[in-house]
């Protein structure tokens, strides 16, 4: 194991901002993409159902 403690882990040798920002941003983009796609799908289904009704 590399890390002496959790706080050392979070500190990332003084580069916390850069490292966590990078990983956080990447995760955020991916999660956002998935959520956006789910919304888009729900919307598309709702519309097709509306269309199918009439």
């Amino acid at each position, binding site marked *: *194991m*590399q*890390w002496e403690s959790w706080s050392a*882990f979070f500190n*990332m*040798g*003084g*580069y916390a901002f*850069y*490292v966590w*920002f*990078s*990983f956080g*941003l*990447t995760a955020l*983009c*991916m999660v956002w*993409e*998935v959520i956006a*796609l*789910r919304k*888009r*799908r*729900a919307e*598309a*289904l709702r*519309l*097709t*159902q509306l*269309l*199918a009704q009439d």
Partner: protein
Amino acid sequence: MNINWFKYSSPQTFYPLAGKMIPWFAWLAAILAVAGLYIGFAIAPTDFQQGEAYRIIFVHVPAAWMSMVIYIVMAGWAAIGLALNARLSAMMAQALAPTGAIFTLIALVTGSLWGKPMWGTWWVWDARLTSELILLFLYLGFIALQSSIDDPRRADRAGALLALVGVVNVPIIYFSVKWWNTLHQGSSINMGAAPKMAATMLLGMLIMALAFWMYTVAVALMRVRCIMLERERTSDWVKELSVQGIAGVKS
């Protein structure tokens, strides 16, 4: 064999198939990501030159790789779509573009987050950075062109042509940028000078890259399903699907 291919290349049959594949790819992506992160943070040693900041490499490089791979795959689908007039291929190309653009953006931003502590600047006009920026422009051009054409068939074909023209140009652009940069000895920084990577680092990067790849497949399939629903709204199979109601939401 031939018949099978034709069967699966119609949106109607591909739609449920894609639905079944998505969870598999999603789980694979998640597992690989966990493994990659574990290797990246727990096993890989601290770099003696860059300290912990180098750990950005575990998202940066996979994202940069994927941004290039996706463009090529996208152009491939576009070419098939244009040549065979296959709707599904064109839709796949369209589904890949936003994900590719996002990865490009991630590579750029994480790259500059890396550059600030290492080089003391957010941005230099380095060959690699510059060509990544241009790749972003190519993606955005593709997306902008497709979204500004109303007729989906026309949008498909115009986009496909653009992707093909782009793919011819990408290597030319890449080498020209590289050459441009090495001829002006302006910047004293050279990314190639990064220390020789430890095996664990390489492994971590590869696993993360695989995770990103699986993620891309899953997301592209999700998006292509949305596109199918939107485009074929009035066709019988979509209507049937929505009449089945809940089944349509789940599968």
